[in-house]
């Protein structure tokens, strides 16, 4: 099981770009990297997923270096509503449910 490490918390200001890095030194060849967002009193919500290099969608970008031992979630021009906990999840295609290991997450606070 690939274990992930993220900063416990981060602060930012509205309009800034925020980068949250997740370390997964033991990532396996078949593992994908997925990020979820959780607002208070809600369930986690999928943000983005990738295997290598760079993935971009309407919400965020995900940068994965060649060795894949880390990944960086990039949120462009954050707003107050981006205040949430962000989870990095690593697992392999075809894995059973118990391989879904959520790390402690990064609590992002966006300040006005």
């Amino acid at each position, binding site marked *: 099981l690939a274990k992930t490490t993220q900063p416990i918390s981060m602060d930012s200001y509205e309009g800034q770009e925020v980068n949250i890095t997740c370390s997964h030194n033991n990532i396996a060849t078949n593992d994908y990297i997925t990020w*979820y967002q959780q607002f208070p009193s809600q369930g*986690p919500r*999928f943000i983005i997923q990738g295997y290598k290099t760079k993935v971009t969608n309407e919400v965020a970008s995900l940068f994965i270096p060649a060795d894949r031992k880390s990944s960086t979630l990039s949120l462009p021009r954050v707003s107050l509503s981006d205040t949430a906990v962000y989870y990095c999840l690593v697992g392999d*295609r075809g894995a059973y449910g118990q391989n879904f290991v959520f790390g402690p997450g990064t609590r992002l606070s966006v300040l006005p």
Partner: protein
Amino acid sequence: DTAVSQTPKYLVTQMGNDKSIKCEQNLGHDTMYWYKQDSKKFLKIMFSYNNKELIINETVPNRFSPKSPDKAHLNLHINSLELGDSAVYFCASSQDLDSTDTQYFGPGTRLTVL
């Protein structure tokens, strides 16, 4: 329309009681899950259920038992509740039992055991 719904949203009960939490998904997914989120906000998977195949996290006490009357429902039954069971329980679903499938989470059930 709510994709994954749970009832109740809040549940307060006494130690030793038996309680159930219901979960329903209208996404047509084949796999459903139960997660526990404790006071430290760690999100830990308890069960995954796919086409009548139950996969249990070995750390989950056998007082917890998932029950699936059909593919759209996965209820969580808890016997002999203990103080340490207090947490937020999330139901989720995904198209298949594959970690690359997006999981859709319910709003959570906050269980408080007194």
